């Protein structure tokens, strides 16, 4: 039953925009310009302000090939993963509860909005005072900063489920599990992906700040040490590594999102804007 339609869908699918993006040289040109500018500027500035590209590359290689520094990178990523995973589970559950029960929404929505409004740095200070252990501090900051995003995205997605679809499902007299799996879960999934993408960047920034305050292992601790030694090459290396890790994780999430949400209509490729074509009047 599957094949003819799959073929038909493939035939009608829009132009492969992703492939076109790879052929687009603008990104390569941009990177090349930045590298050239960096190379030129580093010749006229001291190394503690802007080190040369080779010294940064050497430092990056050192980080990636040394066990203790590599452990710092993985520790930071592990902290991000642990914090985000806990915030995701708790936030999604709270979001669903708020969506399904008005009473829960009345009691939970105001405090969640309040928590979201508290500056992240305040949470770091609170965590330092409250928790003696570094891991607990980092975990607490991660959860408290990213949980509202998951909860509110899930809540909004739940509230946006079309009443028509609920009525349709209800007309078949479904059980709760079937209703959740066929209607609720697919409907909130796009919101959950959005929350992950937003919270990943936020989480990495937060874990770094939390690690700067009191951690001995992790990228934040390494950056603090580099700052105290005026080792700009290390600062840039760590920053670049973290940025690359974040981009890779974002890419992974987007890939998963495109697979899970493949039912969405693909946007048509935009025609290139060029000079107006003269029209003949006869």
């Amino acid at each position, binding site marked *: *039953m*599957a094949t*003819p*339609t*799959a073929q*038909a*869908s493939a035939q*009608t699918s829009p132009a492969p925009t992703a492939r076109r993006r790879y052929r687009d040289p603008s990104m390569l040109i941009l990177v090349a310009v930045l590298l050239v500018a960096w190379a030129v500027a580093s010749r006229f500035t001291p190394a503690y302000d802007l080190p040369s590209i080779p010294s940064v590359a050497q430092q990056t290689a050192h980080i990636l090939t040394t066990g203790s520094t590599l452990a710092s990178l993985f520790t930071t990523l592990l902290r991000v993963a642990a914090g985000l995973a806990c915030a995701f589970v708790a936030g999604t559950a709270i979001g669903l509860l708020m969506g399904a029960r008005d009473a829960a929404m009345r009691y939970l929505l105001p405090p969640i909005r309040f928590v979201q409004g508290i500056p992240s740095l305040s949470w770091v200070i609170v965590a330092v005072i409250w928790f003696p252990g570094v891991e607990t501090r980092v975990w607490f900051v991660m959860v408290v900063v990213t949980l509202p995003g998951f909860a509110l995205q899930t809540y909004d997605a739940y509230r946006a489920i079309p009443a*028509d*679809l609920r*009525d*349709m*499902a*209800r*007309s*078949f*007299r*479904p*059980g709760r599990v*079937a*209703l959740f799996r*066929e*209607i609720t879960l*697919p*409907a909130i*999934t796009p919101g959950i992906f959005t929350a992950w993408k937003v919270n990943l960047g936020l989480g990495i920034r937060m874990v770094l700040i939390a690690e700067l305050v009191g951690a001995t292992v992790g990228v934040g601790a390494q950056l603090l040490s580099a700052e105290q030694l005026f080792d700009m090459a290390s600062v840039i290396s760590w920053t670049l590594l973290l940025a690359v890790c974040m981009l890779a994780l974002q890419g992974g999430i987007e890939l998963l999102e495109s697979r899970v*949400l493949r*039912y*969405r*209509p693909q946007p048509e490729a935009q025609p290139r804007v060029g000079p107006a074509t003269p029209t003949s009047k006869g």
Partner: protein
Amino acid sequence: MRTEAAAHPAIEFRNVNKTFADHRAVHDLTFAINQRELVAVVGMTGCGKSTAFNLMAGLLPPTSGEVRVEARDPYREFGWFRRRIAMVFQDSRLLPWRTAVQNVYAGMKFAAVAKEEWATRAGTWLGRLGLADRADAYPHELSGGQRQRVSLARAFAVDPDIILCDESFSALDEVTGAALRQEFVELVRDNHKTGVVITHSISEAFFIGDQVLVLRPPGHLADDITVPADLDPAVADELRERILAEMSPQTAERGEPKQPDLQGAG
């Protein structure tokens, strides 16, 4: 498939009233629909058709009076009607994240049909409705008529005794709507179902119904017409005038011109 005839009417309304805050949507509505009949409920916009539809389906409780479907209360005994009632709506209401065949599966999953029967039933009904080669298409890849066919397949696949349609063909173009109406009537008759079709089109009501219930605001039965099997065009015109007058007395007084689309009815 349950084929034995029951002694009671399939659907019965006894002095049913339904009020929303200050708005009276249904007033003293009384009618009966026999087993395996195809009945059209026709009326102007806002005359209480959809409220009556939701009352039949057990999605709303009556304010007073009695609604009986298969001699039971569809609202209080909501769960009993699982796999006994299926609905087809004006818009197809397909799940956008499921393909055509998965949408048919979803209906069966909601209705707790045994999983081992899903593939056979979905294949059968999508095939009958001419969608075997579009089974793996997502709703946005289907035309309006195809989407409505999928929603019909979803309803028939649970093998209900009663199928309720709420203006299910009115959003389609004339040609597609007519084809789908024809298919629906054939499927209901061939499979010995009781069918209730809510419509605002008198032509559609004549085409579909063995019986036409005419509603007048606020949700009151104005007429109950048995449609002859071979409806003569002249009789159809006469009935049409009668229904128009009952639906909206002002319209009848103005003597608006007859529409020719009844010629093919019956």
